[in-house]
């Protein structure tokens, strides 16, 4: 399939008279034009273009989940001034040396979306977090088209845990969502995550302000009723080793598999009947026999036909790169929740479908767009563009946001080799243990959770005094500071490197003065000075924020 979608985008093709711009995909021009229209109608002026180094740090964080090293920044700056941004995106997406980190980052992101930050961490959980991550890592490493990914997650059967018979890591998405309470979690998660339809309230009543009715909830729910999770125990014990997700014949709640219906109760106590019907009203045969109709397969097919699938993923990806989606919350789409740029959302969704759901294409369009490349500066000419206070985003500047805990961890590791050596599994265990300190649960059956990695005091304490910071600022032989201290020509050069590595810029005059004062305070011990400065850099707003 062509990278250049023919119909809606054709209008933008004539814009490219300039040869230098020809390498820019028309989708990028479309984004730019539609966002610029918004600026015009609100009479605002966008921020200036971000500095190249700052943009480089930004795109590393967003595409592979960590900041660039000093060397990588240097490599970027050596590229041609007109083309280095495109080259870098190309490199991060397609160069083999980044494949693993790209896959690791997106696997982390999607694991959190699909099973939460705590899914699989509890003893006795049916979920294998390893299995979920392995499946996703493999998928992103091969750049699996998004529609295939969704189909696999929705229809998967097999075993949760790597190394077991019939292993299929994709089952971890649904494995703990189908058994309890008639698969209501499978219903609400699948519709919300992939279609942007918030239906959890309609389990019990018609939704007060979106188009969903209680009937639709149970019709959508019917698609999951052939599916069961089976626990597999460690031999001779009642400890769960892993679980298996299977499809089996469903007799329905009237015990008649040819006509497998379910009942649900209205608020007034009346009982009603539901069969599998998709949100757009499409019905499938009512048989509960898997050999007649596999309900999850049917569901996946209907989902892939839905424009909501395209809009949801485009909106999600946009929000991950720009900090805000076209809607708030990002996974609540529909006429009840107007988008900031409805036309752009629709066109980008179409373009993504036309690219055969190539996620790397979508990432390319977004990262090369003008709004993504702006400086993070709230100025007098765009003062009203402040979505943090409830305004619709206009994307006239890059909105500051905090890195995720995962991005921070990877960045510290990459910048300083703060990880202990060991196998992938050992390192992953260490990472997971570190991440788990920020997860807090709400005590509900739906597994709701929050993170304390949110800019509050516990996070600040961790960065002040935590082990990761201790390792990163260690001055011992062979550690980052030690190696830095014995490199380069002069203290100034080493200080420059430190700032480049952490903040993607050189130190200011005042910062240099502080460094020289520190040097004297440390009795001329440069390593100790570098250690103090590095500690300050790692703790700064500028380090912790994506900007």
């Amino acid at each position: 399939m062509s990278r250049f979608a023919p119909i809606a985008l054709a209008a933008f093709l004539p814009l490219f008279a300039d040869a230098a711009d020809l390498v820019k995909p028309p989708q990028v021009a479309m984004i730019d034009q539609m966002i610029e229209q918004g600026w015009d109608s609100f009479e605002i002026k966008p921020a200036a273009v971000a500095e190249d180094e700052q943009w480089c740090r930004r795109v590393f964080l967003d595409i592979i989940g960590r900041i660039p090293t000093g060397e990588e920044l240097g490599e970027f700056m050596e590229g041609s001034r007109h083309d280095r941004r495109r080259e870098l995106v190309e490199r991060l997406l397609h160069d083999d040396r980044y494949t693993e980190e790209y896959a690791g980052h997106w696997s982390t992101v999607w694991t959190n979306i699909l099973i939460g930050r705590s899914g699989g961490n509890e003893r006795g959980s049916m979920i294998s977090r390893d299995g979920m991550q392995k499946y996703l890592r493999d998928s992103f490493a091969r750049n699996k088209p998004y529609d295939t990914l969704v189909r696999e997650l929705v229809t998967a059967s097999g075993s949760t845990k790597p190394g077991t018979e019939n292993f299929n890591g994709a089952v971890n998405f649904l494995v703990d969502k189908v058994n309890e309470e008639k698969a209501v979690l499978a219903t609400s998660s699948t519709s919300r995550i992939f279609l942007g339809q918030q239906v959890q309230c309609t389990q019990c009543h018609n939704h007060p302000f979106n188009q969903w009715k209680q009937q639709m909830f149970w019709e959508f729910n019917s698609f999951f009723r052939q599916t069961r999770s089976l626990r597999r125990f460690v031999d001779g014990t009642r400890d769960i080793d892993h679980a298996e997700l299977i499809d089996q014949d469903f007799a329905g709640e009237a015990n008649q598999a040819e006509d497998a219906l379910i009942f649900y109760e209205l608020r007034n106590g009346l009982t009603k009947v539901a069969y599998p019907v998709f949100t757009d009203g499409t019905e499938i045969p009512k048989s509960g026999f898997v050999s007649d109709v596999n309900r999850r397969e049917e569901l996946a097919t209907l989902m892939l036909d839905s424009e909501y699938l395209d809009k949801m993923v485009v909106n999600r990806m946009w929000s991950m790169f720009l900090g805000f989606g076209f809607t708030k919350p990002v996974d609540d789409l529909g006429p009840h929740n107007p988008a900031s740029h409805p036309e752009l959302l629709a066109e980008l969704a179409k373009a993504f479908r036309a690219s055969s759901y190539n996620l790397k294409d979508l990432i390319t369009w977004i990262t090369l767009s003008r709004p993504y490349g702006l400086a993070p500066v709230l100025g007098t000419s765009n003062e009203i563009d402040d979505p943090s206070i409830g305004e619709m985003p206009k994307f006239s500047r890059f909105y500051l946001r905090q890195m995720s805990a995962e991005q921070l961890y990877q960045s510290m590791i990459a910048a300083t080799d703060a990880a202990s050596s060991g196998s992938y599994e050992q390192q992953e265990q260490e990472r997971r243990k570190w991440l788990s300190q920020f997860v807090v649960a709400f005590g509900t059956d739906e597994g709701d959770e929050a993170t304390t990695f949110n800019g509050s005091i516990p996070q600040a304490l961790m960065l002040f005094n935590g082990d990761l910071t201790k390792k990163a600022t260690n001055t011992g032989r062979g550690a980052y500071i030690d190696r830095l201290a014995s490199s380069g020509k002069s203290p100034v050069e080493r200080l420059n490197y430190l700032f480049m590595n952490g903040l993607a810029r050189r130190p200011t005059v005042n910062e240099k003065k502080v460094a020289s004062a520190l040097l004297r305070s440390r009795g001329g011990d440069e390593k100790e000075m570098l250690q103090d400065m590095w500690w300050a850099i790692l703790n700064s707003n500028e380090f912790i924020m994506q900007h």
Partner: protein
Amino acid sequence: MTMNWQTPTGMTRRHFMQHLAGSSAAVTASMTMGNALYANAEELKKNHKSAILLWMGGGPATIDIWDLKPGAATGGPFRPISTSGDLQICEHMPMVAQQMHNLSVVRSMSTREADHNRGRYYMHTGFVPNPNIEHPSYGSVIAHETLDQRPELEIPPFVSIGGASAGPGFLGMAWAPFSVTSNGRIRNLEMKLEDSRLRERMYALEMIETGFAKRTRDVPAFEHAKVLKKTFDLMTSSQMEAFRVEKEPEEVKERYGTDGFGQGCLLARRLVESGVPFVEVDLGGWDNHNGIHNILKDNKLPQLDRAMSALMEDLEQRELIKDTVVIWMGEFGRTPRINQNAGRDHFARAWSCVVGGGDLKGGLAVGATNSDGTAVDTEPFSSEDLMTTVCKGLGISTEKTYTSKNGRPMKIAGGGKIISELV
């Protein structure tokens, strides 16, 4: 404290010290006052009011705890018992029954949010969720409104124990809950670095912070600096003693219960005693869609009974109850109808919350539900009303209007009305 610090080249010493004062040196003065304050906790509690929220995550079946319907089809197996107040409660809460003279049950709560996230937000803030604005929660509001009366406090003014509370919304991250586990242990509190060197690092840090905030002019950059200041205060404060719940005598620990919730309630008492204006203690596990009555009888209610009664008894004995409002609630109640899995589902139309202490009357049942608990028979009360009443009990004016950053005026507690029976 000696400052082993040399003036950076190109700056006058005075200029330099001004910078330093902005980041960290100011702490020195407040720390001295803080020590005096801790010693004078006796005096403090007379001047300042606090609140403890016992948050029941998942939505407890108040029809089985506070507003029983014996004999009704919806009633379930539990019997009511008499209490030290003018009302009856569940037989599986015998110890709390002896404390009801200080607690009142609002039996005519009637709300609309029966989804966990929406209910949690609504009950914590007094506002229904709105995608365009985040409202501050109880703890943030009360901390914000009372902190200027206690400038000596170095502990964060809003502490959340054992769970996830609701956030500060538009008040900003400096008013976020400080989350700790129920054993009061705080991760990463110690730096093990010479004081003078820590201060020098703080100075270097401030230099980077300020530059970035000036360049971007964006809110998150400024908020970060406030949080750093609070973090530094906390690391160097002797008031942090209050978190050391392990220092309590064994018999006290056992009276509260040695589980997380019991120790959390004990920690809450210690914090309130030290002047923290708002503490939230979480007890989850109330989302009982299946087999509810066994879970309540064998597990949840004994746990709640022990800890909550210990807290009320302790607050009374220490004469803290007049200055401490206690609130017990979850995101909603549960259906009177018992479902086919012997559980109860989410239900917001008619349920109960419990309040007492501070300036609020105890021992009362306020409002009533109908004979099977499916509807409220008297004037219905909302989260806004409850929060307004709690503020009244703490002497906080709800006439005050916040202006959110986009200029929208917003009353504390969403403009609720005071539940007159309680004041």
